[in-house]
């Protein structure tokens, strides 16, 4: 027994699987991804009487078909990794539906222990489940547990360990699916056994059932490994399908499902479930729903809950974000005193510290946001939001659950697309999820706001509030229309079935919330952190190198010298000593700063980013942008608020604080090139062009790098077209 015992934990979503997993493994768990897909694989170690058991948490599913990634992942794990035992967690208050999945594990034949969860909830509802009777009828151990309190989990794991030590071979259960299908199955099984078809991975009867169910994954695998046998099986399945269609107008897969439920109902009727009260009784959860999904009160409560979540997140994350900001400012100041001025100092301060600061700056926000989302999700409210919003979002090819990511990203101005993109995980429909993921960056996040505020303050100061509201609505409109466009083109396809459970309301466990929040945050720091740091350094390099040629640097130095020489010596001494300055010394300082700012402007223009910005003028005249704006937009790829500081450098104003943009606003207003039309074109461009790279990295993590690059190209093209339209139409009309 050198090999470690592996136990797979499986069950329906909402059956309490994650709670049980957390109760069993505590902090001894880690999260990875199943190879090639974005489905999380969680595993951990549980000590059962000193014996370590490896627990693998399979994704929550209702069935074992090949329709969703989660289901394919779950069954691939079972047949390829061959865990010794499967612990199937079922919700005692909803036994019939939960046993449908158990039934499919029985057909696969894997040794199984059933964890009968939430017996307390069931009891409150007047449902009493006779575990011994159920165990006797199913022929396997059934252990009543309460995962939330940990009650019964010890006994459960001992039963699982005992089974792992005892039974090794798989014993597929033979269920009857009606005479026609049973007869065909016997024939198919004979064919499969004779050809040893897929014999090293799957039981013969199970393969036959999958052929009858028209299971794409198994059929494709069959065609690859043994085309001859696969063809015979397909023919047999087609014959019986046609026969069923002709005689009873149904499909084999429907018939199989009906018989599985028949089998379950037959077991439950044999005294397994006792109802103490009338089954129509209103449970607490239904009473809550009478208010929360009420036609009038429902939407009002929803707005209140979402605004509340928003308010809490962005209010309480502000302080830690500021602390982090001051810490990194302090760090930068320390490095400046320790490292002599030059490329190394610049790399450390502007490249690395700013990059790391940028990554960690999001952390308090992500932490709080995910705590809020986890609370709404675990409590069951998120499913109600999807239920209420679905009708609207469906018009745009999305899903009711899309609302959350949009809100988080800035649907109420001031969110952040990073947690928004990560929040799309709650969507189980792949195409709807992708469309949501790609369009959430259109929302006006907190970093775009100061830029938009600056632009509107220059020319539209009197109507600033109204315009900002309009811009929020514009963002919503654009995101939804873009989503519709994607769903009609690259993400074309039928709507994924909406059929979903509205789980009973529950108070989430503190432990569950903490684990969930920490996982998300850590994932962000670890995976995104490394890449974001790299890109930050690259962008820094692009805006720094190549440095000004020596002759130009010498020119600026000479100018400084000339100014210093012309000034009265007393003022120079005062300037060099620092402290409070007399008027003459202050004038000297201003003149010197002006030279330094000109030098910074020249250096920026000379850098790679500057050359790129200048080169881009060949197309950027269309929306009316000059090279200075172009460089600022390149900087905005690092983080949108950097647009302001880059514009400041480009207009030789030196460092501009995003909080106080007065001088920049004055300069821009005075520029002949800047007109209200151009400001408007720039505003829409900034709203819709490529997401900042923190978001791009998150899109790559949640989807793929291909989609991340697509989103950069798609958004920038769209923004460019829109801005051009605004500028050209505006110039024409005014």
């Amino acid at each position, binding site marked *: 027994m050198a090999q470690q015992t592996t136990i797979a934990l499986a069950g329906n979503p909402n059956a309490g699987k994650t709670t049980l997993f957390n109760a069993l493994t505590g902090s001894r768990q880690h999260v990875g991804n199943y190879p090639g897909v974005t489905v999380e694989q969680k595993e951990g170690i549980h000590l059962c009487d000193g014996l370590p058991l490896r627990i693998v948490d399979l994704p929550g599913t209702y069935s074992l078909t090949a329709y969703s990634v989660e289901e394919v992942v779950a069954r691939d794990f079972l047949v390829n990794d061959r865990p010794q035992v499967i612990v199937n967690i079922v919700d005692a208050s909803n036994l019939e539906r939960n046993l449908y999945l158990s039934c499919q594990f029985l057909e696969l034949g894997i040794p199984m222990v059933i964890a009968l969860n939430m017996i307390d909830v069931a009891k409150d509802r007047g449902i009493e489940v006779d575990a011994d009777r159920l165990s006797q009828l199913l022929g396997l151990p059934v252990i009543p547990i309460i995962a939330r309190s940990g009650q019964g989990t010890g006994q459960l794991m001992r039963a699982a360990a005992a089974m792992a030590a005892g039974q090794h071979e798989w014993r597929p259960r033979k269920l009857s699916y009606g005479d026609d299908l049973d007869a065909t199955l016997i024939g198919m099984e004979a064919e499969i056994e004779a050809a040893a078809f897929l014999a090293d991975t799957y039981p013969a009867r199970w393969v036959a059932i999958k052929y009858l169910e028209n299971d794409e994954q198994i059929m494709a695998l069959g065609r690859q490994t043994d085309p001859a046998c696969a063809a015979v099986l397909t023919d047999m399945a087609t014959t019986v399908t046609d026969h069923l269609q002709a005689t009873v107008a149904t499909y084999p897969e429907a018939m199989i499902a009906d018989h599985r439920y028949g089998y379950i109902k037959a077991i439950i009727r044999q005294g397994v479930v006792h109802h103490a009260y009338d089954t129509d009784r209103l449970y607490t959860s239904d009473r809550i729903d009478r208010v929360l999904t009420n036609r009038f009160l429902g939407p009002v409560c929803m707005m209140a809950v979402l605004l509340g979540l928003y308010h809490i997140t962005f209010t309480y994350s502000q302080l830690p974000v500021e602390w982090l900001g001051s810490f990194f400012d302090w760090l930068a100041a320390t490095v400046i005193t320790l490292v002599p001025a030059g490329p190394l100092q610049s790399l450390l301060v502007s490249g690395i510290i700013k990059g790391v600061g940028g990554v960690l700056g999001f952390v308090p926000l992500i932490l709080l946001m995910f705590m809020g989302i986890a609370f709404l999700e675990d409590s069951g409210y998120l499913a109600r939001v999807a239920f209420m919003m679905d009708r609207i979002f469906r018009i745009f090819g999305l899903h009711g659950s899309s609302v959350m990511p949009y809100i988080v990203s800035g649907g109420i101005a001031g969110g952040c697309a990073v947690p928004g993109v990560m929040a799309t995980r709650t969507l189980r429909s792949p195409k709807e999820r992708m469309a949501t993921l790609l369009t959430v960056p259109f929302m006006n996040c907190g970093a775009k706001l100061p830029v938009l505020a600056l632009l509107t303050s220059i020319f539209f100061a009197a109507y600033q509030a109204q315009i900002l509201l309009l811009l929020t609505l514009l963002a919503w409109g654009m995101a939804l229309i873009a989503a519709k466009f994607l769903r009609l083109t690259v993400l074309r396809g039928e709507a994924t079935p909406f*059929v979903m*459970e509205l789980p009973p309301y529950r108070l989430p466990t503190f432990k569950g919330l903490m684990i969930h929040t920490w996982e998300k945050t850590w994932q962000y720091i670890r995976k995104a952190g490394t890449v974001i740091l790299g890109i930050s350094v690259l962008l820094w390099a692009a805006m720094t190198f190549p440095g000004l040629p020596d002759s130009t640097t010498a020119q600026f130095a000479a100018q400084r010298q000339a100014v210093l020489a012309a000034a009265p010596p007393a003022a120079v001494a005062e300037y060099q000593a620092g402290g409070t300055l007399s008027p003459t010394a202050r004038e000297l300082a201003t003149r010197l700063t002006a030279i330094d700012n000109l030098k910074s402007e020249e250096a920026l223009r000379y850098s790679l980013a500057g050359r790129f910005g200048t080169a881009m003028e060949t197309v950027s005249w269309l929306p009316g942008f000059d090279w200075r704006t172009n460089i600022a937009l390149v900087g905005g790829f690092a983080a949108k608020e950097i647009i302001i500081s880059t514009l400041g450098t480009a207009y030789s104003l030196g460092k501009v604080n995003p909080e106080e943009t007065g001088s920049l606003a004055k300069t821009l207003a005075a520029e002949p090139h800047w007109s209200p039309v151009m400001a408007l074109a720039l505003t829409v461009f900034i709203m819709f062009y490529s997401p900042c790279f923190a978001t791009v990295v998150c899109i790559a993590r949640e989807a793929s790098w291909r989609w991340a690059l697509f989103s950069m190209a798609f958004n920038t093209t769209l923004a460019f077209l829109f801005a051009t339209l605004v500028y050209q139409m505006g110039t024409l009309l005014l």
Partner: protein
Amino acid sequence: MPRMPLRQMQKNQTGTITAVKVAGELGRRIREMGLVPGTEVTIQGRAPLYDPVALRVMGGTLTLRNNEADHIEVEVAD
């Protein structure tokens, strides 16, 4: 006992499913949630925009869109 598509049922009306007339992914999603012939369903309510619909099925609550409910035929008591 009149038969009708699930979509036409009124709030709080109870019926027994007689047929689920759809194959493929949608059919399977509907069945795996327990919506198979013989199952009793009660309409619990509708979303603020009358779609989707919420059903009480075997001690749990399910929701599906009206165009999905069209495929489910129900027999209701008068």
